[in-house]
């Protein structure tokens, strides 16, 4: 008994180890089959394991969802940034295409003019509604002088009136103070195109016996030396011949859309200080 008291713990441990080895070695040949202990344990844990697995899966889903949400949020932000970037590139590309088209048309017009010319951009418009002028980004430092012809891709726009060092004011052909010597392209009837405001012009000093019809094209006559000959001015929209008087009233719609004018050509010819 004394020995058990002294070495009891060691004996117990050793017995346990030996029993464990024995139990293991006895079960090795039948390792593929569940014995009654295994079945008992499995049976007793089965009702708990299933809901536990479900709960675990539920929390796993939540966690995965949270993690993927964070990832998706990040991806969302990245995609938004990408879309913004692509949109701005698209707008820039569209602008470039539009500018290209406008400038190509302007170049076509430039090739029709037998004089040196300069491209300018429109940077401002008249601050009042009853005068029709605009500001371009070229001035005397670029060789512009007062009284030079200003031409858009479609035809005549006006002429320079006030020239600063780096900007100039252009009197549009629709202003009341504007006057351009012109002819009807078809019948060669002459007159002077004057501005009427409201985006329209009238052809004055055209005698009533001259052949003018609605739809006729009006071009510059070249008289006066400011505008090159044959540049488009507009189209006749109304012809009125009164019972009396020696002139007829001819209304013209300009070919140039002044509200959408962005680039113009200044013909570096003539002008005055």
């Amino acid at each position, binding site marked *: 008994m004394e020995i058990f008291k002294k070495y009891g713990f060691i004996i117990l441990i050793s017995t346990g180890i030996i029993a464990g080895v024995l139990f293991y070695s006895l079960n090795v040949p039948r390792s593929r089959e569940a014995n009654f202990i295994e079945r008992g344990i499995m049976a007793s844990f089965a009702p708990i394991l299933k809901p536990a697995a479900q709960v675990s899966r539920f929390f796993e889903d939540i966690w995965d969802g949270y993690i993927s949400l964070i990832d998706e949020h990040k991806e969302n932000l990245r995609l938004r940034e990408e879309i913004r970037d692509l949109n701005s590139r698209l707008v820039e590309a569209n602008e470039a295409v539009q500018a290209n088209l406008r400038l190509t048309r302007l170049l076509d017009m430039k090739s029709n003019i037998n004089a040196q010319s300069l491209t300018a951009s429109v*940077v*401002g*418009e*008249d*601050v*009042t*509604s*009853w*005068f029709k*002028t605009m*500001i371009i980004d070229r001035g005397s430092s670029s060789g512009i002088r007062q009284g030079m012809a200003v031409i858009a891709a479609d035809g005549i726009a006006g002429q320079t*009136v*006030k020239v600063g060092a780096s900007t100039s004011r252009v*009197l549009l052909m629709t*202003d*009341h*103070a504007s006057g351009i010597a012109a002819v009807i392209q078809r019948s060669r009837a002459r007159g002077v195109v004057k*501005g*009427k*405001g*409201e985006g329209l012009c009238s052809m004055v000093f055209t005698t009533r016996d001259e052949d003018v019809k609605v739809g006729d094209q009006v071009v510059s006559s070249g008289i006066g030396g400011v505008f090159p000959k044959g540049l488009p001015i507009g189209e006749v929209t109304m012809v009125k011949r009164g019972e009396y008087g020696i002139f007829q009233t001819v209304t013209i719609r300009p070919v140039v859309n002044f509200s959408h004018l962005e680039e113009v050509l200044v013909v570096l010819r003539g002008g005055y200080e």
Partner: protein
Amino acid sequence: MLFIATVILAVIFQSSVLPVYIADPFKPDLLLIIVVYLALRGSFKFGSPLSWLLGLIKDVLSGLYLGLNAFTFLIIFLVIKNVADRLYAESSFLFVVTVLVATLASATINLLLLVMLTNVPGIAYSITSGLIPHVLTTAFAASLATLFPRFSRGNEAL
């Protein structure tokens, strides 16, 4: 500095920003609004040369006739200043009404000067045909100006 910045902003808006988005008759006269503000709130000594100068700026950016709006603005300033002491100048409503009347007066003086001193047939029709929308949009712009905190505080510096 704030005043100069306001004038520069008004000029930029009126010549380069607003014409892109709104049709011709609906362009408000922002410089005239500043002149009316000067006349109601500012001093005579400071406001009269400044009004003339603002008109001159408008002339540089409009039409062919330098001095036309300078003279008009000066007249408008002097008339409003003359009666401003008898009015409740702090009132926003009065400001908008004064801008409305001043816009009408400006167009009338411009028209008279153009008819008397220049040869621009048809200008009378152009001015009168777009006058109502012009007056209304200017008054609307003036009513927006009254929303600025600086307006309600007044301008002691002027």
